[in-house]
């Protein structure tokens, strides 16, 4: 079946500095979409951005990600993090035959002043 592997555990970063969260995947399907969801403390996970187009940069709320099918990756980046970016980030994929999304284990980001 499909699988998603993310940067494990906790990533700490100083406010104003860049951050990159790794996401790699395995799937037997070519028709696949990819997602980043963000979950703030005591809130519901919500969609941050998504893509199904190879080598096309997708941006939202200052974050960006580019799907690279050649390396099976969909890394999330931000050039200058803010304190409010502290959250749990999930990478996920969906093939058109699955019921629901396959999520990674999540990466917690803590931003310090």
């Amino acid at each position, binding site marked *: 079946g499909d699988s998603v592997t993310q940067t494990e555990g906790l990533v700490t970063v100083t406010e104003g500095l860049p951050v990159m969260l790794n996401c790699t995947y395995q799937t037997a399907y070519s*028709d*696949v*979409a990819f997602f980043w*969801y963000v979950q703030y403390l*005591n*809130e*519901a*996970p*919500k*969609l941050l951005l*998504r*893509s*199904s187009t190879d080598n096309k940069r997708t941006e939202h709320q200052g974050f960006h990600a580019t799907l690279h099918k050649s390396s099976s990756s969909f890394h999330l980046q931000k050039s200058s993090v803010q304190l409010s970016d502290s959250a749990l980030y*999930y990478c*996920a994929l*969906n*093939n*058109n035959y699955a*019921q*629901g*999304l*396959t*999520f*990674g*284990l*999540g990466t917690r980001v803590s931003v310090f002043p």
Partner: protein
Amino acid sequence: NAGVIQTPRHKVTGKGQEATLWCEPISGHSAVFWYRQTIVQGLEFLTYFRNQAPIDDSGMPKERFSAQMPNQSHSTLKIQSTQPQDSAVYLCASSFRDWGISQNTLYFGAGTRLSVL
């Protein structure tokens, strides 16, 4: 639009007791999902309904877990004889229409935190 509503937000049960979790999807959404969230396993798919019909329950522990969707406005997840390992946050999500690649966003509720003592 109130979003996906889950009740209760927190539930504490004793080992062996039953727990029922409720979900009200966003009005007009035809797809409803249940996920379990833990630190160790992340977000695990449990079950999926489309137009109230059960489509896939491959993620459900078979013996003690069951889910229903008696009408389009609510779904329930029932855990019988709860065990400490069932302690987790249970998330319900809904989507606008039939699940299709990249076409739909999953809208999650805030979850029910189940603690089994």
